[in-house]
């Protein structure tokens, strides 16, 4: 029993999630998947493509209720949840700024967003429509929408997929900058090990479908110490601990 008002970390305990197709074929995507993310921690869900990472996030976001098991999201304070999806999913008929503001609760609608837009390099693009943005810029707008919400937990689904490596790298740094300004319990899905090592406090390694946890890999080093030398050491020790993964 948690004391009243205590902030509960993200706790996932999914017994099973099975998809049944119209033809009667059933695919078990998740089985006995359980892990925790501690308060204020940035965790990565790392697993091979198609293992069930997006499925897990969709369950946590409440978009898929057809599963057995349970999960618990942080309570108290702002109990809002924000997501950056695999696609940016901006409303094409609203400007960048309108997209961000519409996603805010009524009390925050008029808040000052100058700092956030500046940090993300979107200051000059607030009045553009999503069709006028490159994919990289659209992804930044999706990040702005998530962070403007000041959520209790942040879920990210491969937010840098299908970008060229340089753009992805810049966006990773931007993500770190906005996240450091207000460290939020975050769970990010990726199948890029380097990305996971660079961004996270701990990596939750998933097995092939049906997804379950193979093990944890903690990265205790502060992020600004993770230079190329350290990164290659981290990579080596990861491969020692999880041979054959990624």
């Amino acid at each position, binding site marked *: 029993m948690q004391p009243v008002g205590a902030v509960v970390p993200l706790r996932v305990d999914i017994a099973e999630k099975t998809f049944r197709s119209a033809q009667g074929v059933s695919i078990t995507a998740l089985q006995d998947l359980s892990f925790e993310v501690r308060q204020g921690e940035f965790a990565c869900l790392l697993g091979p493509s198609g293992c069930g990472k997006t499925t897990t996030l969709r369950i946590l976001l*409440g978009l898929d209720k057809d599963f057995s098991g349970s999960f618990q999201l942080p309570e108290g304070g702002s109990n809002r*949840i924000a997501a950056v999806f695999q696609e940016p999913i901006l*409303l094409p008929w609203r400007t960048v700024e309108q997209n961000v503001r*519409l996603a805010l609760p009524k009390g925050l609608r008029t808040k000052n967003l100058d700092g956030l837009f500046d940090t993300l390099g979107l200051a000059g693009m607030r009045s553009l429509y999503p*069709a006028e943005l490159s994919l990289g810029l659209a992804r930044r707008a999706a990040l702005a929408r998530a962070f403007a919400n000041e959520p209790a937990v942040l879920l990210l689904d491969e937010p840098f997929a299908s970008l060229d490596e340089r753009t992805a790298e810049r966006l990773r740094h931007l993500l770190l900058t906005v996240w450091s300004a207000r460290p939020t319990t975050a769970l990010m899905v990726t199948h890029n090990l380097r990305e996971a090592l660079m961004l996270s406090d701990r990596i939750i390694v998933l097995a092939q479908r049906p997804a379950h946890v193979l093990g944890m890999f903690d990265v205790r080093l502060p992020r600004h110490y993770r230079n190329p030398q350290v990164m290659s050491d981290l990579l080596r020790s990861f491969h020692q601990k999880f041979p054959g993964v990624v």
Partner: protein
Amino acid sequence: MSAPDPGDRPPGAAAETASQSRLTTALTPVLTVAVSLLGLCLLWGFAANAWPGRAFPGPGQVWQVLRAEAANGDLFYHLGATLGRVAAAYVVAMVVGSVIGVLLGSHRSADRFFSPWLILFLNIPALVVIVLAYIWFGLNEAAAIGAVAVNKIPNVVVTMREGARALDPSYAEMAAVYRFGLLDRVRHVLLPQLQPYLAAASRSGIALIWKIVLVVELLGRSNGVGFQIYLYFQLFDVAAILAYTLAFVAVMLVIELLLVQPGERHATRWRRRPA
């Protein structure tokens, strides 16, 4: 007149010519329409001269009647009455039809159950609905407007059902995650996606509705363009019939040009236009 040599033009002349040619391109369609309509009038005038008679008045006579009716205020009174009914029936049909269409488009079992009803209503002749409405609900304004709306609703339902089937679920999911309120969902997520379907339903809607409104007026109202046409039919006054018809067609075209088209341009301003 010979074109001046581009070599000895003063600076700035090029820009002037460009703006002039832009004006010409903007005016050409208007000019074409004007000439085309003038041609039709002339043809009508010649035909009326060739077969003179009370049953086939020329454009001059129709114009005279139009001016007389406008001067004594009758024209505007009856146009206004009809326009009011068109607007009311349009709003009722669009709102009711859209709600039903979106519900059917997003609930498959309901759609399967109600589809036969829809097909039935689509095939009931307008006249039957109007007559029944007057019998059941009396010769009153509500029955008249309701009858017109009921004639249009099945069409709106079919169009909006298509629109609802084409909705992108990822926007709805984003709205759910960020806890959009009901009003925001309708205004910022649902309606913009349905906009092309709403526009299609509106266009065909206005055209259908104003024709049915005339029938409703003819059968059971004591004002409106339909009533006037019936009156002049009994008096065998073709000039007056044509005067009212042309006045009403003109009003509907103006509405299309001044209301519908700018409205659509505003609603689709976010689409990337070819430069």
